């Protein structure tokens, strides 16, 4: 925490704003491995409420090598931290999305869906995304990624956690193997008619294909 943050909090708490506190623990950084990073994730999440008057917390464990939230290790950290806090409090928990691949690619949609399954089944209350192409390339995010995030979450709700884990054991390696050569995808202007804000037929086909792949992995996802 720095003084700028504390000053902003002083203002927000005074006027009664709803306060979201964001923190993204780095797997492979100072905190080390998955268990150590999850411990620090729980600690800082609790600090958001106990020290900084947050109303809900936005997580986002990020992989030091890949710069994504969709890698197995970062999904594992997010899931364990959420489930631990969920089992012991009524705090409101959120997570954010940074897939490797860009929009209009099946890989991007599969990464987003995998994280939505994890966040939903580990008890989180809000899913925030998605910053495709690691959130660093201009205009490489679109509403279609949020559509798959929501659809995958809805399909996961109420499933047995062991069944969700079984699907993830197949789904996550299916895209992780392409991290070194992930498709860059297309810009918003290439994915949508900018005047009507309708997605292109090409993106709708990619979306349908991604849903078919998710069904093949065992997720009963609807259009």
């Amino acid at each position, binding site marked *: 925490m720095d003084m700028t943050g504390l000053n902003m909090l002083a203002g927000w708490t005074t006027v009664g704003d709803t306060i979201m506190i964001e923190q993204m623990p780095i797997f492979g950084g100072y905190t080390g491995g998955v268990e150590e990073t999850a*411990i620090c994730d729980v600690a800082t999440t609790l600090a958001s409420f106990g020290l900084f008057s947050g109303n809900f917390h936005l997580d986002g464990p990020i992989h030091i090598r890949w710069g994504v939230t969709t890698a197995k290790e970062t999904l594992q950290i997010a899931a364990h931290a959420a489930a631990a806090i969920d089992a012991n409090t009524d705090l*409101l928990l959120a997570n954010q999305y940074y897939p490797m691949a860009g929009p209009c690619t099946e890989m991007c949609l599969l990464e987003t869906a995998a994280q939505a399954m994890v966040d939903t089944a580990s008890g989180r209350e809000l899913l925030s995304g998605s910053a495709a192409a690691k959130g660093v390339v201009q205009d490489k995010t679109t*509403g279609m990624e949020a559509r798959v995030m929501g659809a995958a979450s809805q399909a996961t709700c109420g499933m047995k956690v062991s069944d969700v884990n079984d699907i993830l054991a197949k789904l996550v390696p299916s895209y992780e193997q392409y991290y070194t050569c992930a498709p860059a995808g297309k810009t918003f202007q290439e994915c949508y008619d900018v005047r009507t804000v309708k997605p292109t037929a090409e993106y709708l086909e990619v979306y349908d294909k991604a849903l078919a792949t998710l069904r093949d992995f065992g997720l009963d996802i609807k259009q």
Partner: protein
Amino acid sequence: MAATRALTIPDVYERFVKGKKVPEATWDYEIIPQNATALKEKYKLNFGDRIIPEDKETMNNLFQAGLEMLVSTGFYCQDLGRVLKISEEELWEGIRKTPTKLILGEGKDIARFYPRHGNSSVKPIIQGGPTGSPISEDVFVQVMQSYAQEGIVDNLVNGVMTTIEGKPAKTKTPYEIRATMAELRAVKEARVRAGRPGMGV
């Protein structure tokens, strides 16, 4: 000992000011990794191969380890180079004071933000948006509309407008706040275009 009350922001500031001086490198390279590793061993944490935990023991042990990490290690302020401490009782008082239900947005477009617990059959809130990704000024409204018009999306999160009136929205320049205000106007327009003017942002 019972807590006097949950800590306020001024309380936190006072504790930082009176906290122990610690070099940032010592905090980052020694205190955090050493304490995290010690707690991993104390609570025998090993996540194995499953992504989502399936047993309560792991969940409870991780919660206790995280709580102990915060209480025993404290929290660092890099501007002051000092560490504050919070007791377990004060932490729980803060958690108890936190609202467990929130309403995001206004009117017919509200999203109810309530605890789910486990893999509930209740869908989480879907917050759509670029999540801080850089977005061109000339398509900012359309990008945000692409999220607002999705039926599954309940709430919005902004991208970052990269220019304002053609100038880079650089931090610590007047363009930074002008771009931020332009983002807010653009999101309002996107919500109206999508027919959901009360959506939360």
